């Protein structure tokens, strides 16, 4: 096909192409308009919530704190688990080729999901609840779980302030559930003290704490007065 081209015209074309600038800036006026449109979209009105716009703002630090505690606790636990968990399954296992529980490919290796999803963890900035004073001999697990306790205590304090204005039936359900979770936590922590390296108990304890924090957060989100 190039055989049909006039060599002189082709040379001129190549010469003209070579003189073209390597980049071209857009017209500044056009770019200004585009940028204005982008900026306008960044500012979105907050959806009106009849019961709770101010409540959300007021609770934001607690919720953010709880989310961060969950993330911190998950990281701590992951570190703990990686430290105590054997790298490969025991010889008793009939599936020696199976990926070890601590490896990233397995479900148990996933960090515990933050209760409430990413939307909760997006609520920042953050003040980390300080754990209670722990003895120097406290283990990593003690430190991690004391942070869960601190977050739960703060959320429970807020729930106490709202308790009188919630439906009694709802409060009864909450109390029952919290008692069950606390019993599970106490039992698991006792077992973990007896067997500090037990990763399964640590995982289950994390699940129980996560459920407790999630329940308290949901209770804090309940609309007042109308229930």
């Amino acid at each position, binding site marked *: 096909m190039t055989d049909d081209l006039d060599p002189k015209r082709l040379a001129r074309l190549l010469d003209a192409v070579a003189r073209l600038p390597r980049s071209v800036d857009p017209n500044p006026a056009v770019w200004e308009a585009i940028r204005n449109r982008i900026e306008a979209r960044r500012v979105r009105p907050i959806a009106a919530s009849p019961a709770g716009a101010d409540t959300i703002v007021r609770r934001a630090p607690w919720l953010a704190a709880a989310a961060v505690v969950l993330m911190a606790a998950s990281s701590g636990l992951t570190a703990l688990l990686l430290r105590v968990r054997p790298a490969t*399954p025991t010889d008793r296992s009939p599936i020696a080729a199976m990926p070890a529980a601590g490896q990233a490919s397995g479900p148990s290796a996933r960090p515990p999901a933050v209760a409430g999803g990413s939307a909760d963890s997006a609520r920042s900035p953050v003040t980390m609840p300080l754990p209670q004073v722990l003895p120097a001999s406290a283990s990593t697990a003690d430190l991690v779980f004391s942070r869960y306790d601190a977050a739960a205590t703060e959320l429970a304090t807020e729930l106490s302030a709202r308790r009188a204005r919630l439906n009694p039936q709802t409060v009864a359900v909450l109390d029952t559930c919290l008692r069950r979770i606390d019993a*599970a936590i106490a039992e698991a922590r006792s077992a973990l003290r007896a067997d500090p390296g037990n990763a399964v108990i640590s995982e289950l304890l994390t699940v129980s704490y996560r459920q407790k924090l999630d329940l308290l957060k949901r209770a804090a989100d309940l609309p007042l007065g109308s229930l």
Partner: protein
Amino acid sequence: MRTLRSLALFAALSWRLSAQEQVSRSYALSAEGSVRITNLTDSGSIRVIGWDKDSVAVAGTIARGSRFFSGGGYQGIKIFVDLDKNGFTRVAGMSDLVVRVPARARIWLNTAMADIELSAVSGQVDVMAVGSRVRVQGTPSELRAETMNGDVEVTASPTYLRLKTATGHITWNGSSEDVALTTVSGKIVITGGTVNRARFESIDGDIRFSGGVTKSASVTFDTHGGDVTVLLAKDTDAWVESSGAPSDLFGKRSRPSAERASRETNYATVGKPVEAGARIVVRSFKGRVTASLQ
């Protein structure tokens, strides 16, 4: 006597009718617009039905002593029922609404005690409730539903599914790419389909799974004291492990331990899983674990 009974019945019926106010509204709405429904009254029901029209139709009755609002634009509609704190001192009757929405609409439902029923919807759905019973049937692309003590029943196969209760039971029939079902003390019952990435958690509620997993599935069961029953489809290929409480995996029992703290992990395989194939992990503190083939 019969006359008296008739009069009493008539009076009761009249009171019941007068205790409620009829509502009927309709709005144009984009096929993928959003619908936000809030009912903060103590009782009643909301039925949301998807239809093949670009409009929203609200019909039903509102309890006397409640307030009803609705409005919005082509991209979004809000419907709100609340107690009229400045009007009647007591709510009489129940607020029962039927809301027809474009099938692909984005739906938010927020209720206190009103029961919820969704059907024929195919968009994203979010339900936040306290004591409501929640029932969903249809093909929602994503579904999140939370209640405290209400039961949740879902017959659907959304790509993304999150169901959460405190004491309410969770019943799910379907398949999902990514699912998490969580309860404190309610029962979780999963039947039917296939899951890929799944997490089932309870404190002391029993968990029963009956279905299949994909070839690369990652399925986790965590419970403190609930019994876990896993019934896998016959053609399943998966690694299965159970840690914590004594377990019976396809007839293979975990070794009894003299000391409770030294918990054994029980391993088994189903079918012919490849090395990075499907993996099912059960962790139970003290609930019994049983796995078998259907």
